[in-house]
């Protein structure tokens, strides 16, 4: 149990550092920065204390906000996906989730991709809506959401494949 907790603490710190020191400076095509740090929320164990999970997500978002001077946009987006996560788990994994037996290293790749994509899209939509904060720029919000989501999804999938334990 203790080793599991320390794994999550290390994962938290490494993801935050990678995000603020490297990924926030990618600026692909001028404005596209992948937000890899939400992998922490995506891969958090299913069997969890929801209160603690939502609070940790808030803390993660707030840390990113602290470093990127963005007010509370990352915290809001993280809390949102942490709260709606069970709905999407049920939608993507169906019966296995009902039996509380989902392990992210063992599930079907298609279901995992769908689960990740939907949560990432929601996160980015909330993030950019709050960051731009203007109805008159809806097209800009959607454009940023779509392109950044694509980039984040690709990166998240790559990272999960590279760091998966069951190498064949």
């Amino acid at each position: 149990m203790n080793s599991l907790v320390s794994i999550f603490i290390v994962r938290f710190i490494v993801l935050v550092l990678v995000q603020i020191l490297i990924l926030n400076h990618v600026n692909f095509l001028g404005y596209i920065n992948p937000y890899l740090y939400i992998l922490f929320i995506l891969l958090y164990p299913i069997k969890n204390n929801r209160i603690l999970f939502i609070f940790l997500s808030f803390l993660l978002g707030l840390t990113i906000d602290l470093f990127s001077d963005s007010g509370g946009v990352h915290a809001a987006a993280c809390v949102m996906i942490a709260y709606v996560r069970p709905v999407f788990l049920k939608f993507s994994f169906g019966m296995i989730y009902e039996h509380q037996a989902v392990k992210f290293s063992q599930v079907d790749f298609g279901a995992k991709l769908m689960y990740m994509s939907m949560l990432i899209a929601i996160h980015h939509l909330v993030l950019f809506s709050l960051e731009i904060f203007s109805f008159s720029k809806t097209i800009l919000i959607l454009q940023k959401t779509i392109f950044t989501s694509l980039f984040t999804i690709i990166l998240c999938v790559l990272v999960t494949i590279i760091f998966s334990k069951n190498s064949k």
Partner: protein
Amino acid sequence: MQQILNFIIRNKTFLLFLFLFGVSLLFTIQSHSYHKSRFINSANFLSGGIYKSSNNISQYLNLKSQNEILAQENALLNAIIYSSNDTTSTFVSDSSKYGVPYKFTPAKIIKNSYALTNNILLINKGIKDSLKQDLGVINSKGIIGIVDNISSKYATVISVLNSNVNISAQLKKTNHFGSLTWDGESQDFIQLTDIPKIAPVALGDTIVTSGRSAIFPKGIQIGVINDFELDAAENYYIINLKIFNDMTNIEHVYVIENNGLAEMDNLLNPIDE
């Protein structure tokens, strides 16, 4: 009472979600209004320290281009010195010795940002270097932004590439002035609004700071007019400026302090008795 408690216990996850979401929204809204005291900003020892040590490594990557920019600035300053050094004049004005109106503090940007809609930079000078809120930040090519939050060793700077920024600017050849804003779309262009229709606006004209807000001295370069159009009411121009600074590649900047600011404030806003 029992029912209320039961309700809270039953919906504790949802209530926690609502509470934390509300807190984040509050932070977001505060960050959108200019100069609200904010808890969440990168001018603190933790993020400042991390950005400083990462900048210590990454500064070598663009050493060459930064050196070129500094050399260009030296050339410009040399040109000003030698052209104003009139050896035939024997008149020495003493008043220039003690009445220095502006104080320049060199600083270094340790976190640059330009891809968001509200970009905020971090510089390595703070209260210990006698910086204050609301000082202007420039470099050799033009304006960079305005100092916002400040800690003992670091300060955040609202970049001109920030949709909340509002800086007074004017045409270089006449005194018609307006305010600078950014629409959040391109890092090369910012917008100048409220220039009256009567002003002789032409493509390629230079825009400089107006000195009206006393944050920036008058005449600091901003950019050239790229295109312009009248607003919906056809009274004012909306001008698209191409800025001189490449905001994606800035490192050495100067913080300007106007020594006459308190005096000007007293004159403009006399205390009612």
